[in-house]
């Protein structure tokens, strides 16, 4: 019978399977699923990032490149310590291996602490998803309230504050559709005229003329700018706002955003008005989800290393546990690779 078998199949049936321990095979399979998981997540981010009409810059959202780079460095260090632990274990230097594992654990801890610092910073700046204010009216309301408070503290009337007056006008006539009375229009016009003395704006005496004159001024200014190949300048901003208000036309959302940007970034820079961060909520949705899920993975890795350290304390860490360290290491390196992609995507390219 045995001879027949040989004739048929050449040899006795042999054992099957890959030259990989089950656990390592399973770890690689798990990593394959993790790769898909993060492809989906990062893919969603990329799609949103490049598909959105606007995306906040990292520094607008208080991301500190230095912190991110430091965390990258920390993770790289921890990756090295894991492989060194594995090496030590293979060389049967159990104590050295344990030291390296401890180092890895601690580096993971450092990563988490830095993350916590970053998160707290976001929290203090109201950058959590759902907390970023993206609508100009709401921002202006907030700014007005702030100025009012400041004025109260200084025991002044808010109307004496130039910033308050400008914002108030913006809120009433450009955002809302309150009617601009001729007297107010004239006052507004004169404010603009005084603010830009060398622009040579004509003198107006009657409030009723403002709408028409300013309308003309806007058009000429636009034409001038077009020749200079720029789209906007402070004067045009001011004139446009006045012109729209005088005609009783509220600004479109885009115009509101542009005008608020002008007010907060150029005109009243030192007043520190609240910033407008369009798409800030979606940004922070992605930021917290991506880094949060990554941080959970780091936490998971730390638990594994803690278990290994407990094994050491119980005297059960030895070369026979090398496969444990190797699998933990594979996972940890993968987490590192994820961060290697997240760091530039969020902090640099973002």
């Amino acid at each position, binding site marked *: 019978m045995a001879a027949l078998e040989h004739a048929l199949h050449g040899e006795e049936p042999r054992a099957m399977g890959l030259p990989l321990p089950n656990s390592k095979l399973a770890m690689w399979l798990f990593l394959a699923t993790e*790769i898909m998981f993060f*492809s989906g997540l990062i893919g969603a981010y990329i799609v949103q990032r490049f598909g959105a009409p606007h995306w906040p810059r990292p520094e607008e959202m208080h991301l500190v490149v230095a912190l991110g780079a430091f965390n990258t*460095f920390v993770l790289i260090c921890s990756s090295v310590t894991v492989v060194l632990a*594995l090496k030590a274990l*293979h060389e049967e230097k159990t104590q050295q291996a344990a030291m390296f594992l401890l180092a890895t654990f601690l580096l993971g801890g450092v990563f988490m602490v830095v993350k916590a610092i970053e998160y707290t910073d976001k929290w203090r700046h109201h950058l959590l998803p759902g907390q970023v204010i993206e609508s100009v009216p709401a921002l202006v309301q907030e700014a007005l309230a702030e100025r009012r408070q400041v004025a109260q503290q200084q025991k002044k009337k808010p109307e004496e504050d130039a910033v308050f007056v400008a914002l108030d006008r913006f809120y009433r006539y450009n955002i809302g559709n309150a009617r601009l009375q001729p007297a107010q229009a004239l006052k507004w016009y004169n404010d603009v005229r005084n603010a830009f003395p060398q622009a040579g704006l004509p003198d107006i005496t009657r409030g009723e003329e403002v709408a028409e004159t300013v309308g003309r001024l806007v058009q000429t200014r636009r034409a001038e700018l077009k020749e200079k190949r720029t*789209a906007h300048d402070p004067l045009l901003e001011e004139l446009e706002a006045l012109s729209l208000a005088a005609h009783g036309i509220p600004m479109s959302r885009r115009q509101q955003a542009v005008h608020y940007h002008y007010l907060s970034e150029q005109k009243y820079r030192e007043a520190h008005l609240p910033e407008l961060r369009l798409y800030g909520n979606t940004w922070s949705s992605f930021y917290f989800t991506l880094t949060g899920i990554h941080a959970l993975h780091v936490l998971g890795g730390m638990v594994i290393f803690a278990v290994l350290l407990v094994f050491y304390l119980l005297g059960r860490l030895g070369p026979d546990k090398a496969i444990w360290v190797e699998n933990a*290491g594979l996972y940890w390196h993968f987490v590192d690779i994820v961060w290697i992609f997240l760091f530039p995507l969020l902090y*640099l390219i973002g």
Partner: protein
Amino acid sequence: MTATHETHAHPNYLAVFAALVVLTGISVSSEYFLGAGAAHVVNVLVAVCKAVLVAMFFMHLKYDWFKVYFMVVPTLIVGIVLVLTLMPDATFSQYRNLLGVPPPIVAD
């Protein structure tokens, strides 16, 4: 699993570490010295390089490649197909571009 334990080659991990640190430095500094477009490209390339280094040496792919490639390669293909297929639709959606959504306000 003594069979697979064989001789585990351990490359010079510190050299790899040094390379990773240098690459990180490059990607951070590129943002300051290069234009946005170039810096983005550099950043992506550097990230890929770093990932490859970690995978090759720390994850021992250099030695285990023939035992695990059948898991890694299809995964990478499927993952990349997923991301690429999302692109034309969501990112360059022609229907979104029809809308007058405000362009970046800082661009003016």
